[in-house]
Structures are given as C-alpha cells and as structure tokens.
C-alpha cells in the first residue's frame, strides 16, 4: 500500500489547464522526486495534494483514505506537510514563532518542545536567531527555517518544493544532506520537487518527470539518470 497515491488529477487556474492527468505514488520511507522545467506543473501538483488548488477531477489517497476534497488544514492534520516554493517564511514573525506555526495543528506541548529542541540542534543558527524576525534571515537560514518549520508538524510525508532554489552551491549541498538525513535517520517519507534534477536524482529512490501538466517518465532514479532523453533535457547533456 502506498503512503500517498495520486490518481489522474486535473487542476485548473481559471481556464488554464495546469495538470492534465497526473498520477504518482510515494511509498513509506521513500524519497521520490518530481522534476521538470519551469511551468511544468510541479508546484501545482504539490498544492493540489495539499488542497490549496483543489483538483477538478481525479483522486488523492493517503493510506487509502480519500483526501481529495479535504481542506488544507485538515490535510495537514493528517500529516501531509508542504514546505512551499520560495520558502515563504513569515517575515514578521520571529524565528521561534515560525517554528511554532509549523506545529500549529499539534496539541502535545511536550512533543512540540522536544521537536523544537531537535530542530535547534539540527540547525544551530536558528537557535541563535530564534528571537529575530524571519525576514531578517539570509536565504540559506530561511531555507533551514522552512524545513525546520515543516518538521515541527511531525509529517507523515514531507513535500519539499525546490528547497535548493536560489542558494549558493555549498548551501545546496547542505540542504540535500539534511534531506537525506531526514529520510535515512528519521524515516521521513519525502516527495521532493526540484529543478536541480542532477542532485535530486542522486538522492532519490524513484522519480517522475513532469512536462506541461503530463507525467512523461516514471522510473527509478538510477534508470532516469541513464536515460538519454532525460540527460538531454534536464541533466545538461
């Protein structure tokens, strides 16, 4: 049984048909990556899973439970947590308040405090800056905060939308290390959207390639890394 299964979803922005029958699945403990060019529909796929841009048709199942028509906050309560594209830190909340917002749907105070401690241990910079406003952090720190904030929700499955976007190569490495660590050590299931296909495929178990709202390839990450078409289009030849 897949943890998350997306069946043939169609999503529209007004008259723009952004997803034209996207299907994918993520098993427990996997890292699955979703790659594709700009405007392919990657963000829309994540937002449709999270209920932000509901699907016009198709279905989304979390452990065989239908979440297609649920509201975003209900989906979060079930453990589907997204760290959105562009990080979307609350700039006028402090670093600590940002993390508290991540834990919004939880009521176990002690657990939240423990997880906050865990995030601070994982990202010591955030502990130093916990009283600062989110908007004062650097890009790399904001990405740490965005991931930390998502972790505060204790996700069953973590959806990451382009976590490496706009970061210096050294920071990109660090972010990918964190993602791998979360998966290997904490067993967090991850659906990773990336434009940096090379690095995404390097850490993922399986991958989907999205193009103009269609899934064009679905295979193991290793197989796609050696696929000529994919190499040409996404891996720089």
């Amino acid at each position, binding site marked *: 049984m897949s943890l998350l299964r997306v069946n043939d979803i169609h999503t529209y922005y007004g008259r723009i048909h952004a997803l034209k029958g996207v299907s994918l699945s993520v098993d427990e403990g996997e890292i699955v990556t979703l790659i594709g060019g700009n405007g392919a529909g990657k963000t829309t796929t994540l937002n449709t899973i999270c209920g*932000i841009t509901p699907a016009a048709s198709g279905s989304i199942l979390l452990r065989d439970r239908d979440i297609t028509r649920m509201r975003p*906050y209900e989906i979060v*309560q079930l453990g589907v947590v*997204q760290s959105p594209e562009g990080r979307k830190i*609350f700039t006028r909340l402090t670093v600590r308040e940002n993390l508290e917002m991540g834990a919004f749907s939880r009521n176990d105070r002690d657990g939240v405090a423990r997880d906050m401690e865990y995030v601070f241990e994982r990202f010591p910079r955030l502990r130093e800056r916990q009283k600062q406003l989110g908007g004062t952090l650097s890009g790399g720190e904001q990405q740490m905060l965005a991931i930390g904030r998502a972790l505060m929700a204790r996700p069953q499955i973590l959806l990451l939308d382009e976590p490496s976007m706009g970061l210096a190569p050294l920071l990109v490495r660090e972010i990918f290390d964190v993602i791998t660590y979360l998966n290997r050590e904490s067993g967090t299931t991850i659906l990773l959207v990336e434009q940096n296909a090379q690095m995404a495929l390097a850490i993922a178990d399986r991958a989907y390639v999205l193009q103009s709202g269609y899934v064009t390839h679905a295979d193991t990450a290793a197989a796609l890394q050696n696929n000529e078409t994919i190499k040409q289009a996404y891996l720089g030849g």
Partner: protein
Amino acid sequence: MTTTDATPVAPLGRRFIYKPRNWFLENTIRSPLRLVGLIFVVFIAYVALNNIVTGSYRIDQFARQTIFGLAQGSVYALIALGYTLVYGILLMINFAHGEVFMSGAYIGFFVITALQNSGFLYTNTGIALLITVFSGVLASVTIAVALERIAYRPLRNAPRLVPLITAIGASIALQQLFLRLFGVSTRRYPDVNFYVLPQLFPNLECHEVDGAEICRGLDLISGRYDVNVLGINLRILPIHFLVFFVALVMMAALWFYIQRTKMGKAMRAVAEDKSTAALMGVNVDRVIVTTFVLGAALAGAGGVLYALYNQQVTPFIGFIPGIKAFTAAVLGGIGNIPGAMFGGLFLGVVESVAPSMLGLSNQLKDVIAFSMLVLILIFRPTGILGEVLSHKKA
C-alpha cells in the same frame, strides 16, 4: 482560497528609491505639496502660539479638553482597531464597522433600559453595567459574524473593489434595518449613578438620611466634580477616565492575545500569507471570523461606553464615529495595531483641543480632523506608525 503567487511584484512607489540628500529640498522644491503642507503647519503653529501667549487660550481649557479628547479618542481607538484588524487580514475596509459599533450601543440601550425598569440597575449598578457592556459586545459580534458570512466571504476572491462596495451597501442596509425595526426616534440611555470607593472619597455625594449624613463616594458615570489640580480649576467627569481606562485594558488584552496566543500568532501569519498559513494547518476561515469577532467586540464595548456618556442613541450614530475611527486608523497606519490605538487617541485629543486653541468654532472640529489626516498623509503616506506595505500585500 487564493492560489499561490510565484512571481514577486515590485511594490508600487518603491521602484524609484533615492536617498534624500537634503531635507529642505526634499520637502519643498521636489515636492510642492509638502511645501504647501509645511506652510500650513507653520501657520497653524503660529496661530496656536499666538493664542496661548496672548492668554486667549488657557491651560484649564487645555486640561479639560485633553481629558475629554482622551475619552472620545478611546472610543475612536476601539473602533479603529476593528478597521485595522480586518484590513490587516483581508486588505478590505469594512465600511459597515460603524454600524457594528452602533448596534452595540443600540442593543445596549434595550438592555440597560430593561435593567432600569426591573430596578436591578439601582440595586446592582456595577453588575448591570457589565451586563449592558456584555450584551452590546454580543450584539456587535453577532452582526459582524453575519456580515462576514453573508456579505464578505462569498467575495473573498473577487476584485478588491467589489467587497468595498458591498461594505458600503451593508452599512446602509444595517442603518435601515435598525431604522425600520426600532424607528427614527432618539433613544436615551438612563441617567446612572454608580458610586464607588466611599472610603477614598469621604466627602463626595453626601446626603442627609434620617438625620445622619451618608457619603456614597465617587459617582463614576454621572458625577461632575470641581477640583483644583496644581492651581488649575477643573470640572472633572469620572466617566471620561473610566472610558479611557476600560479602553486601555481592552487594548492591552488585545495586544496580549495577538502577540502571545496560538490564535494570535495564526492571525499574524494569515495576515502575511494566507496560503502558507493554510499549509501550516491553520483554518484560514476561522482566523478571519475570529478577526471580525475581536474587532466587533471592541466596537461593541466602545458603543456602550460612548452611549454611557453621550446618552443619545439613533440608528445613525455609527456614521461619524465610524468615519473618524477610519481616519484614525489611516492616521496611525492602517493594518498596524498600535497605530490604530495611537491614531484614535491622537485624533480624539486634537479634535477636542484644536478648535479653541486655534480660536475657531467647535463646529469646525470635523474639518480639523480631516485636514489633519490630509496633512499627515502628505508627509507620511503610510500613516504615523505605518510601514511600507510589503509586496505580499500589494
């Protein structure tokens, strides 16, 4: 639910940033409007100073008017907070908020009258007043929640002009509703005597009862006392201090709620970015309703306080205070909570003090209030405490 917006838009008016080199040049030649404003400010300051020096404006007038201004300003601040809270979250001016205030005062009238008729108002004045305030709050909250659900929520994703016009329509509809239901006639809050602290004020409100003198203490609601403070003879109305004090307590409670509680933090998160707040598990609709509830509660309490010292209640009493409070919110920086508190108090005091300080008729106080708005916006387009609107909001 709105969709995510991927491309950041350059905020309007920030595109041509240049560092001001010369304050004088900046405010005169480069910006003729500011020059006009500056001349006007200098002129006003001259007139005021002249009136003070020649003694035609006296310190006792100033003290009395400041106290009244603080009371009036407290009511403005309580209403202004509702405008600013809703604007902060929905970027919408809830023009029916004046009517939310009015409904609190109006329903409060029925309750306090009933309490008067039952005699409870005399036997348990404090509790009766609390009940009145509470029912005013309840009425305002009910109206505001209904407004949000019926008039504004269906238009959440409509162009911004649409809910604005709807709000004006809702304002008129509510006035007319109260008019048809309860008639045009002016309702009058009863005269209430609420005596407190006889130990602290042993010489106040003394009467002969069966040959013995009994002193009942300070009359908080209807009392008027001539006192001499630092050599200035003043007539003090405790109600003005009461209104100011209650408003301060409510504003402090609001501040605590917004800064410290989980819901308050969610509110700030929703104000900044609805989609991301939803991704955190926040029920955005519930936060929006809570915002309306908070704003309405403050307005309802403000309505009853206002009616306690103004006494007159009609379906139209929301209009002028509503506009004034809106002015106060813009003055302080709309969307900014301390701005609304400060703007309200500031407007109340200026409006009360300025006419006679400038040697003008008191009837010109509205002109003064709105002129001040224009003047301040010339120099600080985002209001006194307002920040430059973040591009997420624009």
